[in-house]
Structures are given as C-alpha cells and as structure tokens.
C-alpha cells in the first residue's frame, strides 16, 4: 500500500481537487474576478477560458432544444413511401450524429409518410437546418459536343456536360486521406458493384476517345477524355448550360456557390471500383475533405425537405418532473451519506468527503469535455456514486473483520484495502467493459449514458481507493482518533 500513500499520489489528488474547484466554480470565479453579484444574471456567462466554454451541456430531455418540422416532397416514383421516409430518417440521423448532437429525436410523421420531425439539443436552429438540409449528391458527367456553344468560359469550349448515370448513391464508402505524395488532402471513393461497372465502362470509353498518354501526347487531351464531378448538378442545370450567367455560376467552386468539384482527365481505364477525388487546382483543406467524405457517406436525401416550422421547445420530460427527480436523487444520496456516517462513523465521514471529491471531479470532467447530460446520463452518474459507496462499504466491512481478527488499527486499514481490492477491481472492470461495448456497438441513444458511466466508474475507483485510504491514513496517524467508538468497531488494538 506504499504506492497509494506516496506523495506523488497525494499531489495528484490535490491537483485534481484544484482542477475540479476551478472548473466547477468557473462561473463564480468569473463573477468574483469581475466584481459581479454572485447570483442573478450577469453578462458574459458562461465564461470562456482559453477557448473552453465551461458549463453543463444538457440534453433534450432536461433542457429542451430545437424542434424542426419537415415536409417531404418529390418522392421517387415506384417506391414505398414508408421506405423512402425511413431512408430519409437514416440520412438525417447520420448527418445529425456528424454534428456531434447527442441523442436526437427523429420521428417519421404524417398519415401519408410525408413529414419528419427532428428534435435536437445544443445547436442553433440555423446550424441544424444547414446540416440536415444540406444536399451532397455527387454527380459524374462526361463532356459532349455542344450544338449551340454560347460562351467561351467553359473549361472545354464547344462542349457541354452530360449526365452519365453515376452518382453518390453508387459509392459505398468515402474517406478523407492525404494523397500518396503526402501533400494534398484527397477523398478516396469505393464504388458499389454497380458503380464500379459503370465507372469502368466510362473510363474505358473516355480513353478510347483519344488514346495516348496525355502527359506526352498533345492529341490525347481531347475534352471527351475528361470526367467531371459535380455536387448536386441536375439535368435542369445542364439544360441551361448555354445561358452564360448560369454557366459561370455552375463553374464556381462548390464552396463559393457553384457546383463543380473537380474536372479531371482520365489517365487510364479504372476497373477496380476505387477512385480518388482531388480538390482540383485549389486543393482540399482537411476540413473540406472530411466534410465531403461525411456528406457522401451519409448519403443523399431521397426527397426534398421543406421546413414547415421551427420552434424552441422546453424539456421533454417536463421541468417539474426533472426537478422532482433530481431532488429525489439528491435526497437519496443524503440518506446514503447519513447512513454511512451512522453505520461506519469516522470512516463513513471520510468516505462521504471522498464522495464530494468524486462528484466535484466528475462534474468538472463533464463540463470540460463536454459531456451532454441527459436523464439517463444522470442515472449513470447516480449509479456510479452507488459504486463509489460500494467500494467503501467493501473496505469498511473488511476493516471491521480485520479488527475483529485482532489486527492493530493501521494494519487493519492496510489489510482491508488490500483484501478488498481484487473484488473492487474485477467488478469495476466488468462495468467498464460493458461501457466500452455500449460505446462501440451500442445504439446512438445509449452512448451518452455509456460515456457518463465510464467516467463515473474510473473516478469512483480513484476516489474510493486513493482518496478514502489517504484520508484514513492521515486521520488515523493521530492515536487519539483510534478509538473503537469512532471507528464503529467494538474493540480494537490501538497501536
């Protein structure tokens, strides 16, 4: 037990304590420093420390959020409306998850499957709408002779794009990486079986239009050999190609209002179903490449979404309900603390202090990470408090046994911690494993809970073993404290 009682561990405990007080009390420290009153509304809260906005992020059930009501239009013909609605929900779900929103509520609605409602916490309505409504549909075109060329600004004068029936829906996955040379960000594409076939034919025909190596043979660079990737290009856009204004607009880069992504020459036939998008002459930034990959992966919306209504909504659980429940939880914890003190006396009191340390540290982590707290998350937290109590109860019950077996008090504390440790370690490990499995394979709705529980387990392990033991060792240094009545044992050897 030398390690637990060593000075680096004690230093670590003090450091965590200072961190927790700093983070938990950030709002009050801000008020004190700026001489604002300690309660009521003051400007500038929550304070921003080095880019950290320190406050408790509450989920939809506790704090409410944004409610968006969508109308679905333009259903693809010949498909079940319920299926299309479900696919749309899946796409929205992926997009919202990419936004980092925890536990969104997305419901299909309407007797005709033509509505979807989305409830989100922690994002502005604007942000949410931008991400959900975003259309990222990759469209491939080749270039064909334009019978009526109107403008010379086209990358291939006298030619206009033609849809080739290859879109983002034919891509099974996309990922952003650095290219082989290690300089530019690119997006790697893997086509579906159908997409691979189309792409193969397309690239073969392209090369056949004017064979040769484009790097050396000037005749090999004909416009037919180019393959162009657009975002959301429609047949309508192509029909208006010969309108100079429209054409100039379309040819803008996609991030400045245009639709063109990259216009690349086909060097050779590509048959493996793999392709790469580079950012063209401007190149991609890492963020752009990631955004594009996410957009492609989350798929394109099969329908058009029209926002019918956006409202700020209150907590889904009802404010009264939440208040009552949290009050009930706190009351329960208070009873637990009283019970610990009455039943275990001095060690119980020290364990309660360790619990305070624990709660403070966990809340600091919640604020700093940040973790979005939902009711399920708070339950995870209360249960981890239960686990922290559990570890202490294990140690104290063992302590009583060791004293009964005739050990001196310091030896009994030492033995109790050591003997209780395997059970504490194994039971916490099993809970931690469950948390990790939930995090990786669990449904999205469970992840917040799993994170809270995992943080709680680690912190409770630390507080019950390290903090309680150190407090006990320090207090029991004084022989005056080694009184059986204080320790909840009938009789003990003092020395």
């Amino acid at each position, binding site marked *: 037990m030398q390690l637990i009682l060593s000075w680096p561990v004690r230093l670590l405990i003090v450091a965590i304590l200072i961190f927790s007080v700093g983070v938990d009390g950030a709002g009050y420290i801000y008020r004190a420093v700026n001489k604002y009153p300690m309660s009521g509304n003051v400007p500038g809260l929550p304070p921003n420390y080095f880019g950290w906005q320190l406050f408790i992020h509450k989920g939809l059930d506790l704090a409410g959020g944004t409610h968006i009501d969508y109308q679905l239009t333009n259903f693809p013909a010949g498909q079940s409306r319920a299926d299309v609605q479900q696919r749309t929900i899946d796409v929205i779900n992926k997009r919202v998850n990419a936004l980092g929103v925890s536990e969104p509520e997305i*419901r299909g609605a309407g007797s005709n499957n033509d509505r979807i409602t989305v409830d989100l916490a922690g994002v502005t309505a604007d942000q949410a709408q931008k991400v959900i409504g975003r259309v990222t549909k990759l469209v491939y075109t080749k270039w064909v002779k334009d019978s009526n060329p109107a403008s010379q600004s086209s990358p291939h004068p006298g030619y206009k794009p033609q849809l080739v029936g290859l879109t983002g829906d034919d891509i099974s996955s996309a990922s952003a990486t650095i290219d082989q040379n290690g300089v530019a960000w690119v997006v790697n594409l893997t086509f579906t079986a159908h997409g691979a076939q189309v792409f193969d034919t397309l690239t073969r025909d392209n090369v056949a239009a004017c064979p040769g190596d484009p790097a050396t043979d000037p005749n090999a660079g004909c416009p037919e050999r180019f393959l162009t990737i657009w975002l959301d290009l429609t047949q309508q856009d192509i029909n208006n190609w010969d309108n100079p204004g429209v054409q100039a607009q379309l040819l803008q880069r996609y991030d400045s209002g245009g639709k063109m992504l990259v216009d690349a020459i086909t060097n050779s036939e590509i048959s493996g179903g793999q392709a790469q998008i580079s950012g063209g002459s401007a190149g991609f930034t890492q963020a752009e490449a990631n955004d594009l990959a996410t957009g492609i992966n989350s798929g394109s919306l099969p329908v058009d979404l029209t926002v019918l209504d956006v409202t700020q909504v209150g907590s889904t659980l009802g404010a009264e309900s939440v208040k*009552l429940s949290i009050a009930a939880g706190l009351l329960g914890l208070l009873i637990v603390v009283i019970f610990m003190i009455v039943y275990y006396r001095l060690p119980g009191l020290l364990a309660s202090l360790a619990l305070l340390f624990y709660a403070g540290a966990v809340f600091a982590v919640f604020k700093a990470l940040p973790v979005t707290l939902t009711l399920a998350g708070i339950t995870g937290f209360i249960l981890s408090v239960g686990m922290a109590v559990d570890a202490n109860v294990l140690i104290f019950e063992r302590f009583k046994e060791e004293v009964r*077996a005739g050990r001196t008090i310091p030896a009994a504390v030492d033995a109790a911690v050591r003997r209780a440790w395997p059970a504490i370690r194994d039971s916490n490990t099993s809970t931690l494993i469950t948390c990790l499995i939930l995090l990786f394979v669990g449904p999205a709705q469970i992840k917040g809970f799993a994170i809270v529980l995992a943080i709680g387990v680690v912190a409770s392990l630390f507080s019950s073993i390290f903090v309680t033991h150190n407090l006990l060792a320090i207090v029991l240094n004084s022989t005056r404290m080694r009184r059986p009545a204080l320790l909840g044992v009938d009789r003990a050897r003092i020395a």
Partner: protein
Amino acid sequence: MLESPDDKESGAVSADEPESDLEETDGEPDETLAEEAAAVEEAVAEPPPIEKVVAPPRVRKLDIVSRRNWFFLLSLLIIIPGIISMSTKHFLLGIDFAGGTELTVTFTNNPTTAQVESAVASENIDGSVISTGAGGFIIRTPPLQPAQQTTVLNDLTNKVGPIDRSKLSILEVGGTIASETIEFALLAVVLAAVAILLLLMIRFRNVPGGWRAGFQFGGSALAALLHDVFLLTGLFSIMGAVLGLRIGEIDSLFVTAVLTVVGFSVHDTIVVFDRIRENLRVSQRLSFEQVVNLSIMQTAARSIITSFTVVLVLAAILIAGGASLKGFALALMIGIVSGTYSSIFNAAPLLVVWRRLQPVR
C-alpha cells in the same frame, strides 16, 4: 501495492500444507495471513481465544447452499412466466417505439406547463407535455382516434383555457427507436456477457482447478447475469402486456435500465466469488460447500447494504420523482434487487452444483 497477492499464485496451492504454501506463493511477506486463516475458521468453529468478541458473529448459521433448490425454484417461478409472457404477449410499447399522436396546441391564456401537464395527466392517456413558449405546447400521446382527439381537445379547453384553432396541428408520429436500436442493444448485451465471462475466467483461473474452475466461476456469474436480465424484462412484459399497467411500458429509458443491470449485476457476484477464492486458499479444512456458504455469509452484509443504498435513491425517485421516470426507477430497482438476490442465492449455489457435476480437483 495494487496487486492482490493471489495474482502471483499459479494455482500451486496444495491441500496438504496450507500455511507454508501461502508463505511461499505470496509475493510480499504477509505476516498476518496465518492469522487470517485462523480468523476465517474461527468464524465456523469457536470464538477466538485471545480477543474477546462482544457480539458473536451473527447469521453465520444460515445454510443457503443446502437449500439451493428452493432458491432456484423461486427464481424459475418468476422467470418462466416472464419468458412465456415475452414470447406470447411481447411488451407494451411506449411512444418511443410505437409512435403516437402529436398535438401542437396554442392556448390563448398562456397557461404554465404544470397546468397543462396536470390536465393531460387527468386524461389518463399518458401524454408528455413540452412547452414551446407563448402559450404553445406539444403534447405527445399514444395513438389517438379522431374521436379521442376531439375529447382531449375539449377537455383541455375546459380545464386549461381556450385553444387557438388556427394554430392547432395534429400529427401522427412514428417512434424514435428503430428496430435497429434494439438489435444493437441486444448485440451489446451478448458481447458484454461474453466479455464478462472471459474476464472472470481469467481472474479466477488461479483457484484450485485452473481454467476449468475459472470457467465454472465465469459461467455461474453469467447465469446470474442472464437471470437478472430475463427477470427484469419478463416482469415488465407481465406488467405491461398482461396486466396492462402503464408503468410496464417499454421506452428508451427501459433499454438503458436493462443495459445498466447488465453492467452492475455481476458486482455482487464478483464480491462473493472473490471471497470464495480467498477462502479456498486459507481454509483447506472446509469442504467446497462450506467454503461457499461461509463466503456468502461473510459478504452478504456488504451486498445488502450496497444494494440498499442504491435502492434508497431509486425509491426516492419512484415515490417523489416525475411520472415519466417512475418506470425507469422501478426497472432499475428490480434489476438491482434481482442482482443481489441472484448473486447470493443463485450464482454461488450454482457454482456448488456445477462443481459436483464436474469435479475439478
């Protein structure tokens, strides 16, 4: 020293010379292990000669292991009807799963959320109320027929105030939990169960009997875990689908509760098993059954106290907490009580049965 002494042991403890064996195999010299052995055996034999124990050890006479069949029977009496109910009647699904009706209502007299909540509660349709500000509320209920909708709206007008009909919208909404969610949750439970089995096998491989014994410990703990999961889901199926009680409704919080029980159920079992492992080492004179019974008695106080503390918190929520949380608190309570019960009365006795069928020494 954060390692337990037994981690360094390799199952080399022989039955002949317990004391000297322990001295050798222990990583650190433990001056008091012999004393410990005496203490454990004293608990079954005599009060200690030196220390005067004022209150003699309590409840040590209770023999749980030999009455194990009664406890197995008790568990089966709850679990089997539960499984029958789950497979025939399934569950009473909440709005999260089954969807329902969403009424967007605007009151012209700006009532408080609490007023609307109490009016909806008196309708007995289990609706949730969300404020959208300026007298607007979203009320979500299980599916309502048009006639019921009219009744509800009329009652709301009578109890709360006039409704602005121009802003009224009634929408059928689907569930927020896809069947996929449940598949993921089930997969998570299965993976967690396998992982816990492996963990316990590794942790308990150093009891006499090696890996096979480790498998018995892990398997018994897993059985207790499944006991808790089936008992909880079965009871909710009975309450919701058979008895039609709203509290037995299945929602996303229930899924959370089940997963929590998976995470916590093995705690008590591990504490008992850890004690069995320790006692197997220090008291070679007792039979396996006696060791198991002794270990249960030594840890029962702790298991019951711990569960009691958590149940206290949950009881507070169940009694005083909001209506939407009562089912959740009840589910956790059942799971935790069952977890403690199964570790004391099922897991450890099951270990004895398994050892009898498949002796490892």
